[in-house]
């Protein structure tokens, strides 16, 4: 039985590795954020959220309480995201969870927060299913994918044509955008897709698809993918000889800064729907653009920046309203109070193009805060890109749910 005793030695060794965590101090509001930190601008979104909470603390905090933010990376992987959420809930005993960037991570976390009764507010995920799960604990700041699709389809069908080819990357948000767009084209114009290609999340070679699309003679190409994948597809569509007359339609990630940077002139004329346009003329938007440019070195913030910023402001408002005890025994009550306070946010006007409103019912109508997508197209590519707003479209609240 020597093997057994050897095993015991190792278990004894491991016990020493566990670090004892100190219990949290009362008077602090603990917030856990899980995001995709090692990617595109993920790090900068996270940094901005942390900076904004720091600023709130510096200005006296929330009703005298300070905010303690803990930021973890989930690599856009659902198992890591769930582990982070569990760590926040059970180990750090947070009052609120912010997360995640990727829809495929937010989806399972919704179940975790619903079971543990912790409010969760989503900064970037657009997949429509997130709020359709019926959790009373989830809030979404960005525009749901179901609204984007309606606007894209209407504009496409009325101005471009109905013969559309689709390139859909295998990440949850893009997939949802792609499916919803096809569905809307069917509903609004009775148009079947001319060509559909499912590609890897980080596909590098699209030229075969582009050549097939070229021979299909389409009116437009919908490219639903994350920023870098999309920009490669845009570039290669020109390499394959698809002319400018065929319009390129982007999914909402087209607003991310890497797209014009990598795609360069290939981005001209690409239109997409997003929650925020850097071309926004309102003073608040101009100030925000300036702040992001100075602090984070980004020429023009995309809507993931604005959504993260709006999220911080909404959380700030809600925390001011919530009646918090912040003692060890009042954790569950505080979590419920924060949830109810977020649900009471109505008609918040920030960077998003329309008002953001929540309500108490655990339905998508209540929990998809932003209902106003903006239709944008690129007028200049490269690092110093420029965009133009085509339309702001307040959507009917039930759109895309039937």
């Amino acid at each position, binding site marked *: *039985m*020597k*093997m*057994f*005793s*050897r*095993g*015991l*030695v*190792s*278990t*004894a060794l*491991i016990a020493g*590795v*566990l*670090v*004892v*965590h100190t219990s949290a101090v009362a008077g602090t509001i603990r917030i856990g954020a899980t995001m995709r*930190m*090692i990617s595109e601008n993920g790090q900068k979104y996270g940094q901005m959220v942390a900076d904004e909470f720091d600023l709130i603390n510096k200005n006296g905090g929330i009703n005298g309480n300070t905010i303690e933010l803990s930021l*973890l*990376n989930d*690599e*856009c*992987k*659902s*198992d890591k995201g*769930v*582990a*982070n959420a*569990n*760590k926040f*809930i*059970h*180990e750090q*005993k947070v009052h609120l969870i912010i997360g995640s960037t990727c*829809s*495929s991570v937010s*989806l*399972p*976390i919704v*179940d*975790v927060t619903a*079971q543990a009764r912790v409010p969760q507010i989503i900064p970037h995920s657009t*997949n429509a*299913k997130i709020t359709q799960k019926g959790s009373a604990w989830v809030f979404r700041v960005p525009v749901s994918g179901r609204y984007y699709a309606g606007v894209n389809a209407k504009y496409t069908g009325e101005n471009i044509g109905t013969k559309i080819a689709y390139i859909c*990357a*295998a*990440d*949850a948000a*893009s*997939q*949802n955008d792609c499916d919803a767009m096809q569905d809307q084209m069917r509903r609004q114009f009775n148009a079947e897709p001319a060509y559909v290609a*499912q590609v*890897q*999340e980080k596909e590098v070679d699209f030229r075969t698809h582009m050549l097939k699309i070229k021979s299909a003679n389409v009116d437009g190409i919908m490219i639903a993918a994350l920023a870098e994948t999309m920009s490669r597809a845009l570039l290669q569509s020109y390499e394959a000889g698809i002319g400018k007359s065929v319009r390129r339609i982007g999914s909402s990630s087209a607003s991310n800064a890497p797209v014009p940077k990598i795609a360069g002139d290939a981005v001209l004329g690409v239109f997409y729907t997003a929650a925020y346009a850097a071309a926004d003329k309102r003073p608040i938007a101009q100030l925000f653009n300036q702040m992001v440019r100075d602090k984070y070195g980004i020429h023009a913030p995309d809507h993931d920046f604005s959504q993260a910023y709006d999220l911080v402001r909404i959380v700030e408002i809600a925390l001011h309203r919530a009646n918090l005890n912040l003692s060890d025994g009042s954790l569950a009550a505080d979590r419920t109070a924060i949830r109810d306070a977020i649900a009471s946010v109505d008609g918040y006007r920030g960077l998003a193009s329309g008002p953001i409103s929540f309500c108490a019912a655990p339905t998508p109508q209540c929990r998809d805060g932003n209902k106003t997508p903006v239709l944008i197209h690129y007028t200049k590519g490269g690092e110093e890109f420029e965009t133009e707003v085509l339309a702001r479209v307040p959507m009917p609240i039930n759109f895309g749910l039937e």
Partner: protein
Amino acid sequence: MNLVVTLQGVGGFFGRMERTHPLLPWLLAIVALLPLPLILSGLFNDYYVYLANRICIFIMLSVGLNIVKGFCGQVTVGHVGLYAIGAVTAAILSTNFGFSFWMTLPAAIFIAGLAGVVVGVPSFRLEGAYLALATLGLGESVRIMISVTPYLGSSTGLGGIPAPSAFGFTFDNFTRYYYLVMPIALVGIYLSFAILRSATGRAFQAIREDTIAAAAAGINVRKYKLLAFVISAMYAGCAGAMFAHMRPGYIHHNNFTIIEMVTLLLMIVLGGIGHVWGGVIGAIIVTIIYDQTKDFYFYQPLLFGSSMVLLVIFMPQGIGGLIDRYIVTQRFIDARREAGDGTS
């Protein structure tokens, strides 16, 4: 030094136990591990119970990998593919067909075992690096298939996988789930012991040491290689089902990438390739260290990658080998001292 003496005492105690009945120490181990969630949530918090569950799943994976890699010496890098097959099988059977965990678990083990045959067949003709290439390709193909096939979850993943239940008792939180996965993991460890001690295990080791000599000694090399692959695949399938049914019951193709494979490799390298406890030690340590270093996410890959490189170079036998050497040396010294006492 005292620790070793104590442990040898404990080992001797269990040794006597085992002579009474071979299963006795294992039953004792189950009993000893029963109050662990209470201890963990009392001393720390529920999150550590969750970690214990994750560790049990990783133990299944790495013990299975150790059978084909450590015992039989076949280089496979496609283990996550089999894990994915198990998870997807369990997910589809339970969500689309309403099977319970007690049906999906054997089904996942069976399907993964079949896939193990596919992975194992190339091993008839290929060795070393060639086999690594073939299995790497197979494992990645499985992930790509899942990611582009809507029925298998595609990019949205498969969600809503129900928690297992038995006699009205639902394993729907960490503590409850622990009482499901801990016994399964222990059975897995026990079976790997049983295999190693059996004629099959000896055949595996013979193949590892020298394939040609093993064949000359009358071992059916193909049969045993295939068997090793199938057994390890069944472990992976079991781990997949355990992962799929764990709260919140959601799987996604990017849970099964090359990074997860590298983590698994690190586990068995750290624990000791071919050491009976290697997979167990590695799974426990790597999971805990991964969790404790979460705040340093920018440097985590550097930490894990470089420890793999350095381990292979400076400590190829892993922690298991280190413990072995220490205890064996200690026993040798003890034996000499006793012998010396006798003569003087």
